[in-house]
C-alpha cells in the first residue's frame, strides 16, 4: 500500500489530536491508536515492500519519526522499538526468518527489543541472559529491564549470550515463562510502555534464533544503529515542538510593554532553539543519506546524530520551559513533557557519555585527511 508522508502526518494528527497530555498522565497509549498505525505498517515503515512493508527510505521515515516525536514522544518511542525490532530481524535474520516475522511486524503486531539487565546497562558486555540449544529447540533464561514498549508488545527481540558469542531471539510475550512487569511511573516518555521482563526457561523453536556466533558487541551495535537514528529524529521532533511553542509564546505574551520576543535575553533562547533544531536536523539528514546510500559511514553517522540531537533536545527543551515560564509549569504541558522526554533521550540507546566514548574511539582510530 503506497503511503504518502502527508497522509501519514494527517493520520497521526487525527489519532493523537490533543490526547498526548492524557496519555502522559495515564501512562498509556490506547491500544486502538497503536494497532491502527501498526496495521498500516507505519511503526516500522522501512520494512521492504517484498516483506509486506512500506519500503520507506530512511530520510522519509526520519521526517515521519520527527513528526510523531513533535506530537508525542511516547508514541515515537514505541515506533523506535518496533522499527528496531524489524531492523534487527532484517539485519540478522535469514530470508526464511524475514518471511516468518517481518510481515507480522509490518501488518499489525507490536514488538520491542530487550538489551539492558539489572547489572548490564551501559556495560552490555556484562549481559548474563542465555540462549541455549536444547534438542530441537532453544531455552531462554534471564532478566531484562527498561524494555521500551514491552508492555504493548506481542513479540520481544531479546539479546543474549549464545555459545561463545551472542544471538537475538524472537519471543512471543504469550510464551510460557515470560513475565512482563511495567516500570512504575517513568520520568519521561511515560506512555511508552517501559517494562522489566523475566524469562524463566522459555522454550522457543530454533527458527526464533537470529544470527548467532557473532560477538555480543557487534550484535548490539548492529541492533542499536536503527535505535540511534530513530531516537535522533525523534529529538528533532522534540526541538520542533519546543521551537513552535516558544516562538508562539514570545510573539503573543507581553511584559514591560512589549512582546517577550523583543526582550533580548528571550530572543537569545529563540535563536538557540532554532540553531539547535537546525543542527539536529542536518545531522539526521546526513545519517539518513548514509543509510539510504548503503554507506559504511551510516554506523558512525547514527551515533553522531543521536549524540548531537539528544543533547540539543535536552538544552532546547530547557530553554523552551524558560521562555514559557509558568505556562509550561504544568504537568503534561507539551513543553514540560518535552523537558522530561528529552532528558530521557540522553540516557537511552547509549547515554550521552557512552556515545562520547564511541566517538572518541572513532576520532582516535580515524586516519588523517
Amino acid at each position: 500500500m503506497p503511503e504518502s508522508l502527508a497522509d501519514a502526518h494527517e493520520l497521526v494528527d487525527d489519532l493523537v489530536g490533543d490526547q498526548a497530555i492524557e496519555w502522559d498522565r495515564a501512562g498509556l497509549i490506547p491500544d486502538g491508536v497503536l494497532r491502527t498505525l501498526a496495521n498500516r505498517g507505519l511503526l516500522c515503515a522501512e520494512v521492504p515492500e517484498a516483506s509486506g512493508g512500506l519500503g520507506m527510505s530512511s530520510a522519509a521515515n526520519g521526517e515521519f519519526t520527527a513528526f510523531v516525536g513533535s506530537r508525542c514522544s511516547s508514541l515515537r518511542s514505541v515506533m523506535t522499538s518496533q522499527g528496531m525490532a524489524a531492523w534487527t530481524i532484517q539485519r540478522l535474520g535469514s530470508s526464511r526468518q524475514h518471511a516468518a516475522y517481518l510481515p507480522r511486524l509490518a501488518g499489525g503486531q507490536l514488538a520491542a527489543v530487550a538489551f539492558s539487565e539489572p547489572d548490564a546497562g551501559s556495560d552490555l558486555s556484562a549481559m548474563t541472559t542465555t540462549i541455549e540449544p536444547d534438542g530441537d529447540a532453544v531455552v531462554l533464561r534471564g532478566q531484562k529491564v527498561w524494555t521500551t514498549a514491552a508492555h504493548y508488545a506481542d513479540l520481544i527481540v531479546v539479546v543474549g549470550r549464545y555459545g561463545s558469542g551472542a544471538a537475538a531471539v524472537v519471543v512471543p510475550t504469550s510464551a510460557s515463562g515470560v513475565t512482563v512487569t511495567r516500570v512504575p511511573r517513568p520520568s519521561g516518555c511515560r506512555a511508552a510502555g517501559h517494562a522489566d521482563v523475566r524469562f524463566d526457561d522459555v522454550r522457543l523453536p530454533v527458527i526464533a534464533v537470529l544470527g548467532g556466533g557473532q560477538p555480543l558487541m557487534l550484535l548490539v551495535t548492529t541492533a542499536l544503529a536503527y535505535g540511534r537514528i530513530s531516537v535522533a529524529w525523534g529529538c528533532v521532533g522534540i526541538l520542533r515542538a519546543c521551537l513552535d511553542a516558544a516562538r508562539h509564546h514570545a510573539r503573543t505574551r507581553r511584559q514591560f510593554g512589549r512582546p517577550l520576543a523583543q526582550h533580548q535575553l528571550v530572543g537569545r533562547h529563540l535563536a538557540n532553539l532554532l540553531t539547535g533544531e537546525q543542527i539536529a536536523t542536518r545531522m539526521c539528514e546526513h545519517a539518513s543519506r548514509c543509510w539510504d546510500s548503503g554507506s559504511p559511514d551510516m554506523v558512525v553517522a547514527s551515533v553522531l546524530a543521536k549524540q548531537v540531537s539528544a543533547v540539543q533536545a535536552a538544552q532546547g527543551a530547557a530553554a523552551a520551559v524558560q521562555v514559557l515560564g509558568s505556562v509550561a509549569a504544568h504537568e503534561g504541558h507539551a513543553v514540560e513533557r518535552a523537558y522530561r522526554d528529552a532528558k530521557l533521550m540522553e540516557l537511552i540507546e547509549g547515554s550521552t557519555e557512552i556515545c562520547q566514548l564511541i566517538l572518541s574511539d572513532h576520532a582516535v582510530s580515524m586516519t588523517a585527511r
Partner: protein
Amino acid sequence: MSQDLTTTAESIAQTIAAFVSKRVGADVPADKDLFESGLVSSLFAMELVVHLEQAFSVQILGDDLKRDNFRSVQAMTALVLRLNGAE
C-alpha cells in the same frame, strides 16, 4: 582455480584491503587477524559488513555474520566469493 576466479579473488581482496587500510591508516596484510590485533571495534565491524554488501552487491545475513567471516581480508574475500557464487 581458473584464471578468471583468481583475478576476481585478487580484485576483491584488493578492494577490501584498500577499505581496511584507509580506515585504520596502515597497510594490512591479507592474512592478518583484525580482531586479535585490536584493529576492529564493534563500529568498524559493522562498517565492514555494510561495505562488503555495498561494494560487491551481496547480502550478508544470519549465520554469515559470524566473526570468523570478518577475521581477515582473506576471510572476507572468501565470504564474498561464496555469496557471489551462490547467486
